[in-house]
C-alpha cells in the first residue's frame, strides 16, 4: 500500500474551476489515506506544471501520482511521460476525469459537480494506492518480412525493406512479376511505360542479396503471431531449366500447338501453353502452363532444357511481419450489362488498353475498323443497385488518358465519353483539358438514367439523355463500346481467408484507421499496401507500399518487440477449460493446452490486447487483467460509494 501519493487538481483554465470548487476537492483529498501531497493548478498540462510535477515526485519520493483533469484520451500519455521523466514507473500514474465527467456534464449543478469530482478523485487515489510498476512484455522478432504480391506496391516495399537491412521473402503467385502495372503501356502524367517501371524495379530487386523472390508461389498455411510467423509456401515448377537457350525456347513456343486465351491481354488474344507475356519480361524464362498443356512433346523435341519431371516444392519460412500487396481484379460486367457479351464490340477498359498497346497503323477489333469509340463510365463502380458503392478513382483519368493515347496513335478516331461526372483530381486535370481540346465529346447522365447500349440492325447505338444539354436525347453509332470498369477485390480471396484479414464494407482488406493507422490491420504484424486495400493508382499504390514497408520494419527492426503489459493472465489452477474465453477473444489469443493432467487455457501474450472480454465469461474467475484486478476495481467502487 502506497503512502506517498501526489494529487494534482486542474482548473483547466475555468473549464473545470468555473463549476467545480477545486479548492474544496483539494481539501477533501488531502485527508485521504496515502495522499502526501495535493495541489491545484491552472493548467496541469502546461510545461511549467509538468516541470513542477517532476520536481515534486523527485523531492518527495512520490510512489503514485493522480492528475484530476480532462479525459485520459487527451492527456494520460502526457502525465505518464511526466512520471517516467521523474524516474517513477509510468503505471503508477492514475488519471481522473473531472471535466467531461463532472464540470461539463453538470454545469448547472455546481455543488453536486464538486461532490462528484471529489468521489472520482477518491476512486483514482484508491487505484493509485494499489497500482504496481509494470514493464513492457518483450518478445523476440525475426528480422525478416514476407511481402505477398510482386506487383508495383509489393516490389517497391520489398526494395525499401531490403534497403533497411531486412531479409525479404517476395512471394508472387504468378510466374512473372509486375502484376497489373506490367499490363499497362503508357502511364498517365508521367512518361513511363508500365513494363519499363517493372523492369527497373526488377533490376534493383535482383541486385539485392537479401531479397528472395518466389514466382508461381502460394502461401498454403500460416501460424504464429507478430515477430514469429511461420508460412508454408507451395512453389510450382516452370518445367524449364534456368540458363536455357533463348532461341531454342522461342522455337519451342512457336511450335506449341495449344492455344488458349491470353489473360495478360485480358483474353482479347491467344497465347501458347508454353509462353511468356512480352519480350524482356521478368523472370526472363518462359513457363509451361501445365493445366492447358497436352504434353504432346513437340517443345521437348526442339529444346532439351524443357523438363516435365520438375516437381512442385514446399518450403517453410519464418518471418516477423507480413506485408500484403495482393492487388485487385478489374470488374467483370454481368452478361448484357451495357451490351457486354451481347455484342462483339463491347469490351472493358483493360481490354481496350491492351488493344491500343498491341495495335499499329490501323485500329481494328475483330477485323472491323474502329472510328467511333464510346466509353461508358462507372461500370461496376458507384452502383446504385449493385454491391460496389465506391468510386474506383483511377478510371476517369485512365480512360481519358487511353482516349488521348488512342487519338495520338490513330488520329482519325472519335472519342465519346458517357460519364456520370468526371473526377480527374489533382494534376490529372490537365489530361481532361487535353482530351477536350482533342475534340472528345463528353456527355453526362445521372445514375438513375444511365447511357444505353442498343443493338439495332447490326449497329451498336449508344444513347443518352445528356444532362449537359437540357437532357436532350442524343446518340452515336459506335464501332467499339468500352466499358470503363472499376477495381474490385480479388475474386480469389484464399490468402485473405488464410490470414483471416478483416474486410471493409466494399470487401477490400481493411486498415485499422483510415487516417491514423492506414496500413496496419487488426492482426498485429500484418500490414497492407496497394490496391488490395481499395482502389489506388500506381503512385498511390507505391506510396502505401512504402508506408507499409516502414510499418513492417518497425515490427522487426530491433529484433525484439515491446508490448503493452496490460494483458489478461490465466490462473492455470483455477481454469477448468470450458472454452468460453477462447470463443469471445476477438484476437484469437487464447488456446487450449494440456499438461498431461488436465486441459487448461493458455494466453498468447504477444497477441492479447488487454480488452478484458474474457474476464466476465469465466465461470471460475480464473482470469485477471493486469492493472485492473478485482482488488483494484473493488477499491475504486468502495471509494465512489
Amino acid at each position, binding site marked *: 500500500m502506497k503512502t506517498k501519493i501526489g494529487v494534482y487538481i486542474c482548473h483547466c483554465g475555468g473549464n473545470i474551476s468555473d463549476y467545480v470548487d477545486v479548492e474544496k476537492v483539494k481539501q477533501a483529498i488531502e485527508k485521504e489515506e496515502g495522499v502526501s501531497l495535493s495541489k491545484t493548478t491552472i493548467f496541469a498540462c502546461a510545461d511549467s506544471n509538468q516541470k513542477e510535477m517532476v520536481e515534486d515526485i523527485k523531492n518527495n519520493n512520490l510512489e503514485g501520482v493522480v492528475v484530476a483533469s480532462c479525459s485520459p484520451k487527451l492527456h494520460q500519455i502526457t502525465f505518464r511521460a511526466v512520471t517516467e521523466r521523474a524516474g517513477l514507473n509510468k503505471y503508477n500514474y492514475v488519471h481522473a476525469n473531472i471535466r467531461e465527467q463532472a464540470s461539463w456534464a453538470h454545469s448547472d449543478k455546481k455543488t453536486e459537480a464538486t461532490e462528484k469530482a471529489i468521489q472520482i478523485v477518491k476512486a483514482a487515489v484508491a487505484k493509485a494506492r494499489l497500482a504496481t510498476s509494470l514493464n513492457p512484455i518483450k518478445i523476440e522478432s525475426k528480422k525478416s518480412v514476407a511481402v505477398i504480391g510482386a506487383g508495383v506496391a509489393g516490389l517497391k516495399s520489398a526494395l525499401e525493406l531490403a534497403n533497411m537491412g531486412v531479409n525479404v521473402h517476395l512471394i508472387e503467385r504468378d510466374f512473372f512479376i509486375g502484376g497489373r502495372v506490367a499490363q499497362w503501356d503508357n502511364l498517365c502524367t508521367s512518361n513511363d511505360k508500365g513494363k519499363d517501371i517493372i523492369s527497373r524495379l526488377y533490376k534493383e530487386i535482383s541486385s539485392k542479396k537479401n531479397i528472395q523472390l518466389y514466382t508461381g508461389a502460394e502461401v498454403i498455411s500460416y501460424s504464429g503471431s507478430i515477430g514469429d510467423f511461420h508460412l508454408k509456401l507451395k512453389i510450382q515448377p516452370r518445367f524449364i531449366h534456368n540458363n536455357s537457350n533463348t532461341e531454342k525456347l522461342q522455337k519451342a513456343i512457336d511450335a506449341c500447338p495449344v492455344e488458349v486465351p491470353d489473360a495478360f491481354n485480358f483474353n482479347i488474344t491467344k497465347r501458347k501453353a508454353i509462353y511468356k507475356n512480352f519480350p524482356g519480361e521478368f523472370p526472363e524464362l518462359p513457363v509451361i502452363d501445365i493445366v492447358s498443356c497436352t504434353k504432346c512433346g513437340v517443345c521437348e523435341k526442339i529444346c532439351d532444357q524443357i523438363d516435365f519431371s520438375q516437381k512442385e516444392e514446399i518450403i517453410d519460412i519464418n518471418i516477423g511481419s507480413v506485408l500484403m500487396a495482393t492487388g485487385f481484379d478489374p470488374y467483370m460486367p454481368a452478361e448484357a450489362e451495357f451490351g457486354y457479351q451481347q455484342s462483339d464490340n463491347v469490351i472493358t477498359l483493360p481490354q481496350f488498353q491492351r488493344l491500343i498497346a498491341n495495335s499499329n497503323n490501323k485500329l481494328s477489333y475483330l477485323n472491323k475498323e474502329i472510328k467511333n469509340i464510346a466509353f461508358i463510365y462507372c461500370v461496376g463502380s458507384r452502383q446504385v443497385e449493385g454491391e460496389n458503392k465506391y468510386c474506383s478513382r483511377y478510371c476517369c483519368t485512365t480512360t481519358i488518358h487511353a482516349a488521348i493515347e488512342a487519338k495520338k496513335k490513330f488520329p482519325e478516331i472519335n472519342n465519346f465519353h458517357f460519364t456520370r461526372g468526371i473526377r480527374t483530381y489533382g494534376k490529372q486535370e490537365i489530361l481532361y483539358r487535353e482530351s477536350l481540346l482533342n475534340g472528345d465529346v463528353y456527355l453526362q447522365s445521372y445514375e438513375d438514367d444511365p447511357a444505353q447500349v442498343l443493338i439495332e440492325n447490326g449497329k451498336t447505338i449508344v444513347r443518352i439523355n445528356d444532362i449537359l444539354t437540357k437532357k436532350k436525347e*442524343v446518340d452515336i453509332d459506335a464501332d467499339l463500346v468500352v466499358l470503363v470498369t472499376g477495381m474490385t477485390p480479388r475474386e480469389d480471396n484464399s490468402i485473405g481467408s488464410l490470414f483471416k484479414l478483416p474486410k471493409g464494407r466494399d470487401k477490400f482488406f481493411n486498415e485499422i484507421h483510415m487516417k491514423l493507422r492506414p496500413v496496419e490491420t487488426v492482426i498485429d504484424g500484418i500490414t497492407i499496401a496497394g490496391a488490395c486495400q481499395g482502389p489506388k493508382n500506381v503512385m498511390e499504390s507505391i506510396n502505401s507500399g512504402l508506408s507499409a514497408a516502414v510499418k513492417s520494419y518497425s515490427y522487426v527492426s530491433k529484433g525484439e518487440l515491446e508490448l503493452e503489459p496490460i494483458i489478461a493472465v490465466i490462473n492455470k489452477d483455477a481454469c477448468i477449460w470450458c472454452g468460453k474465453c477462447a470463443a469471445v477473444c476477438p484476437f484469437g489469443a487464447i488456446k487450449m493446452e494440456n499438461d498431461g493432467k488436465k486441459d487448461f487455457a493458455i494466453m498468447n501474450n504477444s497477441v492479447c490486447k488487454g480488452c478484458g472480454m474474457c474476464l466476465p465469461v469465466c465461470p471460475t474467475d480464473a482470469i485477471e487483467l493486469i492493472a485492473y484486478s478485482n482488488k483494484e476495481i473493488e477499491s475504486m467502487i468502495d471509494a465512489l460509494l
Partner: protein
Amino acid sequence: MSRINTKFGTDLKKFGTVDFQACYNCGNCTAVCSLSTEEHSFPREMVRYSALGMQDEIKASLKPWLCYYCGECTEHCPQTANPGELMMSLRRWLTAKYDWTGLSGLLYKSFALTFIAMLLIAVGVIAFAFKENFNQETIMHFGHYFEMFAVGAVFALILTPNLIRMWWYVIVKPKVKADFKIYLNSAKELFIHMFTQKRALGCDDNQVRWFEHMILVFGYIALLFTTVFLDWFSATNKFIIVLGYVESIVIFIVTFHFMLGRIQKKKEVAKFSQPSDWLFVIWLFLMGFSAFFVRLFIDMGLIENHFWIYLFHIIVLVQWAAIIVPFGKWSHFLYRSFAMYFENIIASAGKKN
C-alpha cells in the same frame, strides 16, 4: 433525338472559334452574362450545341443574336474556352446559313476567295473606267446610279430572301403560332433596335461603345441618304455639303477608333478578328475617308486633275455594295434587329397560347 456530329466543331473553327471545345460545363459564362436570363440562358447552351453538332437547334435559336459581346464570359472562363468568340462565330455561321446563295459561307471560310473577289471588282471598275476613257462626268453619273441600283438589288435579291429564311428557321419550322396582329404589334421593336441597338446597353460598362456604334449607324445611313438621294457630290446647297462632310467625318473617326481597338486588343471583343471583321471596319473607314476627300477635291477644284480619288472611292463602294453588304458582316445590322423582332413575336405568341 439527334446524332452527335463532331465534324461541326471542325467546321466552326473556320468561322473563328477559339478552343470552345475545352468547355467543361461549369456554366460560369452564363452566370456572369448580364444579358442572359432564365428563359434565355446563354452562352453555355450554345457551346454545348456546338460541341455536339446540333445544327438544327442552333439554326432555330436567336440566342447568338441576343449576345452583344461584352466579353465577360470569356474573361471568367476557367478553361479559356472563349465562349464570347464562339457566340461571334455562331453569328458568322448563322449569317452563312441564312444566305441562300451560299456565298457568305464560302467567303467567311476562305480569305483567299474574298481577296480574289475584291480584286476582280477593283479590276472591273478600272476596266470600265478605261472603257469610258476616264471620262469624269460619265463615270460619276454611273457611280451615282450604281449606288441607287445596288441598294435596291441587294435588298431585293439577297437580304430580303435571307431574312425570310431566318424567319423560316426560327418561327415557321419550330411551329410558332403568331397571327398578323402580333407581327404588327412587334414591329415597333424592330425599328427601336435597328436604330438604337439599345440591348447593347445591357452589357456592363458598354455606354461608350454603344454610343460610338450608334452614331456610326446614323452617320452611315445618313451618308447613304445624302449621296444617293441628295446627290452630295453634285449638290450646291451649302447645308447638304456640310451635312455630307460631317457624316463622312463621323464614319472615319469612329471606324478608325474601332480599328485601333482591334490592333490594341485590350477588350475581349477586339481580341480575335476574322478577315470579315477587318474588311468590314476598314472598308467602312475607306468609304467615309474617300467620300470626304472626293467632296473636298470637288470643293477645291482639284478633282479634274486628281480624278483617281473618285476612282478609288468608287472601287471601295462597289466592293462594299457587292461583297461586304450582301455576303459579309454588314448584314448583322438587319439580323440583330430582326432577331429582337422575332424574339418579341415568339414571346407574344407564347403568352397568347
